[in-house]
């Protein structure tokens, strides 16, 4: 069963300069799928194509088997999908946070009598309770990212995209965002994360690794993030524990299996002793 299916999709902004080339993938419902790749690899372009924010040059994209290019395709996508952009300033439309969230609710035809409750609940989810009347211009970068996420969560879409949505959060904020995403997954939402940062994608159910405008591998977080050579190929930072595993091997110390986290590394070293 798939929610999103991309078939032979290619895209170029200018002639002879392909941003993505003949890619195929499918995204399962109720799971966290991460698209991992370095800057300029085409990650954001892929989700812009899925959301019909860019016109498809070649190939087909389906959401719940609805063809993106069909007559009502775009309308359907707008109802199903929400996105938190990399730069939160790109998605605010009102100067006051509460009004900004209500703008989305009005456009999704949610009755006005429910707006206040929706705003309150969305702000609670991102730890911004009490920020309803705040001017968005006075929020910090990290607060803006959480505020932008609240605007999308209020709409209760089934498919949620997070485009580097935690890049400006402090370490605790990143942990909170990961927990929130896992909670949304547990509520059966389909989540698509886009990132170049391994810490953001470590809890994903599936990772699609992009390099050279193509998908070079996909699999579980463990399969992809412990594949040293592929990560090097894709220009992605090697997880700390994987790097330690490789370097110990070079020094003649072999661990039973490659750990993904520092805790797993400690466990492996404990077993070694």
């Amino acid at each position, binding site marked *: 069963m798939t929610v999103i299916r991309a078939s032979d999709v290619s895209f170029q*902004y200018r002639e002879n300069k392909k941003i993505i080339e003949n890619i195929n993938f499918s995204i399962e419902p109720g799971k966290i799928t991460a698209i991992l790749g*370095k*800057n*300029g690899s085409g990650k954001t372009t892929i989700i812009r194509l899925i959301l019909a924010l860019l016109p498809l040059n070649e190939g087909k994209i389906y959401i719940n088997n609805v063809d993106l290019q069909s007559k009502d395709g775009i309308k359907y996508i707008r109802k199903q999908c929400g996105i938190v952009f*990399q*730069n939160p*300033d790109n998605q605010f439309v009102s100067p006051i946070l509460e009004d900004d969230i209500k703008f989305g609710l009005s456009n999704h035809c949610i009755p006005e009598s429910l707006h206040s409750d929706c705003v309150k609940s969305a702000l609670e989810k991102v730890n911004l309770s009490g920020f309803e009347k705040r*001017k968005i211009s*006075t*929020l*910090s*970068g*990290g*607060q803006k990212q*959480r505020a932008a996420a609240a605007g999308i969560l209020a709409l209760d879409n089934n498919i949620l995209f997070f485009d*580097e949505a935690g*890049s*400006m*959060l*402090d*370490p*605790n*904020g990143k942990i909170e965002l990961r927990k929130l995403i896992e909670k949304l997954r547990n509520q059966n939402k389909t989540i698509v994360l886009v990132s*170049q940062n391994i810490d953001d994608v470590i809890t994903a159910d599936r990772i699609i690794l992009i390099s050279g405008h193509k998908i070079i591998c996909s699999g579980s977080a463990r399969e992809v993030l412990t594949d040293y050579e592929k990560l090097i190929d894709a*220009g*992605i*930072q090697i997880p*700390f*524990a994987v*790097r*330690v595993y490789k*370097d*110990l091997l070079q*020094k*003649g*110390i072999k661990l039973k299996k490659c750990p993904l986290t*520092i*805790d797993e*590394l*400690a466990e492996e*070293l404990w077993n*070694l*002793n």
Partner: protein
Amino acid sequence: MELELRNVTVSYSSAEKILDNFNLEVNKGLFFGITGKSGSGKTTLLETICGFHKPEMGQVLFNNQNIYEGKFDTVSFRKKVQMVFQFPENQFFETDIRKEIEFGIKNTTLSSEDLNRRVTETLQTVGLNDNETEELSPFALSGGQKRRLALACALVLQPEILLLDEPFSGLDNSGQNQIIKILQNIKTKGTTILMVSHDPNVLCEIADRIIVMNDGRIIKNEIPPIVYSDKQFCSQLGIGQPDTITAANLLDVNLNNDFTYENFITKLAEKLLLKNND
């Protein structure tokens, strides 16, 4: 003292102080890493140093002169103190990369030959110097390239103080390493750097001192090993710890205040081989 903030208070509304009686002394040529929770006042601090927010109280002194006083020479200050914003696209407006970099220095007394040379050198410094890239619009660049272009726009003026607001957020590994190298290079030339970042790994690697902020105040202003070796403090203030320290604590490896990865792996291997031989 090159830069000093004395009892500076800044607020956006009467209810909340973003900088609260803030004091800081910055010596020339030092690299300050500024960290702290979201909303602790880090960006406002940089903007206040840059001359964007006149404090309600206190003074911002550059070479002992208050930058917010009427007679202060703002024009020359603008050339000496440069800020790179959190979102590089917020500061672009030219049609191609070369023009974008030129904009900052075209009104200086440099001859057109010198100006061209300076722009070319800066493009090389940030690795945007191939002919095809130079012709691109700043808005057509990838996130990492935009960061480097924004840095180039600041560097072309050869500032004495460089203020950077989260220059690594959204950057991949190689982009991050490129910027670290550029910063290490300009630091050796005596540029003072104040950089806001949430990344303890990077801050521990390149900063001379770490300023930890909370609710508009400095909680700690110390060298990186002192700040980051205190697990409870880092957790309370939400600033995280470098991976090497987390792993060393868990694995009981003594790093002797050298938190580099190379030292960590050497010490870990020594410990494991020693145990093996026992």
